[in-house]
């Protein structure tokens, strides 16, 4: 800070003190929030915190961007071990089990229910609450939740004689080949960086395929991956076929797959609903979006979420806990939810917020923003579609991606690769079980 700006700020704060009188002398209780939102979404987080801080003079939330999700969880671990943790941390959905069994957190629902604040937990959108719940109670406060949807280039579909993408994978595949053949687009679809999430995990959920035993890990640490025995194998084989035929394109390092879509090179793109803001800003094409396809003859289920939730680190003072409760209460409010939904493209977390958006006519003006909500709310979640509770889920996910890449490079076929992926994944699950036996 320069001396000049320091003087200005000092003068301003003295003035503020005089004007607001004695009450301002009581310092607001401050809580630290470490988050992983950068760029535009980082600015939205700052706006959100500013709104909260202006709504109360008792509490103050200080939001600090600690890098990406990996950096936030590592920073949290380091701070916790050094006994100087922040109050609230934003942890990605894959870190659920790590956080839950860390002995370092206070379950959110427990914390909130002890306070005077009453939150209608049943109003949370089911796959959102279900993902972050342990034994029916929310362990973390859902925050930025998304789900994959299918973005498509309207002009290119029309050029090849289609109104919109087909509902089933089989028909959709034919469309992609037709689009390429007609020369409407150079490639059918661009492979997203997080393709494991849309093309394998959500594929399993939507088609009601078991990903692992024990209700995808919800019923015990002795869960085992079984997706090598489901339609996931032909799905991986299909991706390889598309790749060989030039229907699927990988952007690779140094280039973003989203650009392959927004530049009009690829006709479709499976990505998070949170990609809306980027696509809206960059696309020079006529685009729209629709639901993820499903397999012929299946009754499609809900998709699952991605994103992150807010965890409360334990060991903080009572008044600081109150500040956290107040902040979460503010976050859960339909108005806040609606604002966040509109500002970022993430889904609203409660049905009330969703109703509010509908009543406002928001989806008339931006219909594609509703797709993820509808898709998440489709039907009643089954054991296969509620979510994934796997220890060290990041690790098994990377093992799986490595095996899928082995299919792409041609060194394994889809069945071999998925067998190896589940085998490696199961070793990871067993190690986790050994470490945490009796804790879940």
């Amino acid at each position, binding site marked *: 800070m320069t001396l000049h700006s320091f003087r200005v700020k000092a003068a301003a704060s003295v003035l503020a003190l005089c004007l607001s009188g004695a009450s301002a002398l009581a310092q607001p209780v401050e809580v630290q929030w470490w988050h992983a939102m950068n760029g535009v979404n980082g600015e939205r987080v700052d706006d959100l915190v500013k709104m909260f801080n202006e709504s109360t003079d008792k509490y103050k939330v200080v939001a600090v961007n600690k890098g990406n999700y990996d950096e936030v969880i590592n920073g949290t671990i380091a701070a916790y071990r050094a006994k100087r943790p922040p109050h609230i941390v934003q942890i990605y959905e894959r870190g659920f089990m790590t956080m839950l069994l860390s002995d370092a957190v206070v379950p959110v629902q427990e914390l909130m229910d002890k306070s005077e604040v009453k939150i209608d937990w049943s109003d949370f959108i089911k796959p959102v609450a279900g993902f972050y719940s342990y034994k029916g109670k929310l362990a973390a406060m859902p925050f930025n939740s998304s789900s994959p949807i299918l973005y498509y280039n309207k002009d290119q579909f029309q050029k090849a004689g289609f109104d919109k993408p087909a509902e089933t994978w089989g028909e959709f595949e034919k469309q992609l080949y037709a689009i390429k053949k007609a020369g409407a687009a150079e490639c059918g679809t661009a492979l997203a960086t997080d393709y494991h999430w849309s093309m394998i995990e959500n594929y399993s959920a939507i088609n009601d395929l078991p990903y692992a035993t024990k209700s995808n890990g919800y019923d015990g640490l002795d869960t085992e991956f079984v997706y090598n025995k489901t339609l996931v194998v032909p799905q991986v084989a299909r991706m390889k076929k598309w790749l060989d035929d030039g229907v699927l394109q990988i952007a*690779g390092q140094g*280039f973003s797959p989203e650009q392959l879509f927004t530049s009009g090179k690829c006709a479709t793109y499976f990505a998070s609903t949170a990609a809306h803001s980027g696509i809206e800003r960059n696309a020079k094409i006529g685009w729209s979006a629709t639901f993820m396809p499903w397999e012929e003859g299946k009754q499609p289920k809900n998709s699952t979420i991605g994103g992150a939730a807010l965890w409360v680190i334990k060991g903080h003072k009572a008044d600081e806990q109150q500040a956290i409760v107040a902040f979460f209460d503010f976050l859960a409010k339909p108005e806040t939810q609606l604002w966040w939904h509109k500002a970022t493209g993430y889904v609203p977390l409660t049905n009330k917020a969703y109703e509010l958006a509908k009543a406002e006519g928001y989806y008339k003006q931006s219909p594609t923003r509703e797709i993820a909500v509808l898709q998440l709310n489709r039907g009643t979640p089954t054991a296969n579609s509620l979510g994934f509770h796997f220890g060290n889920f990041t690790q098994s996910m990377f093992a799986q991606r490595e095996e899928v890449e082995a299919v792409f490079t041609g060194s394994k076929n889809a069945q071999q690769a998925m067998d190896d992926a589940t085998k490696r994944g199961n070793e990871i699950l067993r190690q986790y079980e050994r470490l945490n036996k009796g804790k879940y």
Partner: protein
Amino acid sequence: MAAPLHEPGLKQSHFKGVRLPALLLLPQLLILLFFFFIPAVRALMGAFLLSDPFGATVHFVWFDNFIALFHSESYRNSVRVTIVFTLAQNVITILIAGVLAFATDRVVRGQSVYKGVVLLPYAIAPAIAGVLWAFLFNPAVGPVAFFIKSLGFAWDPNLNGSDAMLLVVFAASWKHICYNYIFLLAGLLAIPGSLLEAAAVDGAGPIKRFFQISVPLLGPTIFFLTTMNFVYGFFETFAIIDAVTHGGPAGATNILVYKVYQDGFINLDLGSSAAQSVLLMTFALILTLVQFKHVERRVNYTI
């Protein structure tokens, strides 16, 4: 060990007693203590533990982490990849740096300009260098990739492991050629002109002089550089791998140091990561010892 008396050198004649040398060494030792020895000891301890990242549950598991590694196909793959990567990188770096140093040595005019140009890549941060290479060679948009394809070669580091390996080897070498170059050039300049002139009088051409006189005299420098290149390949190429390939495709460029990072930092498998770093350290240690033992003997240290 005290140096033998009949070999007077710097060691004995300048420092009497212990206090002053100890004092002078202290800052460096402190740095080593905090940034090397303490982390190394912690890694060694962690290698025998199975631990929750938050430290809630810790099991002592003896050698389980190591045994798991030896059984892991992806770890064995990483070892193979590292050997190929460091060897290729070493050979390419020294060869190109050698040619450049030789050429600069022959240049009469504008030598400093050439030196400046060759040294430039050293000033670029590895991560930035990595991004540059990734972009230039990206099969969808990279200009160099277009050029390669226009020559009729298939090029896709996203799908072809060998292409990816080639790419990171060249990126890592490019970044390190300058370091090798400075040392080789300094070595060349230090070679007594009388030796070269005598050879020239005897009728040896510049290339013959280079191989018969300069290269043997550069032995110590090349030996030193080989060790440094291995250390560089083992530990410092992390950022390049991270920016260019993320260790892919299918682990084709997943060198050991990147795997340590991935398993420790991303996957939070701290025990395995610690065991890997202990093995990596041992690997580097053995290599250095072997080099000293076998290579040093053939090196001519007296000029």
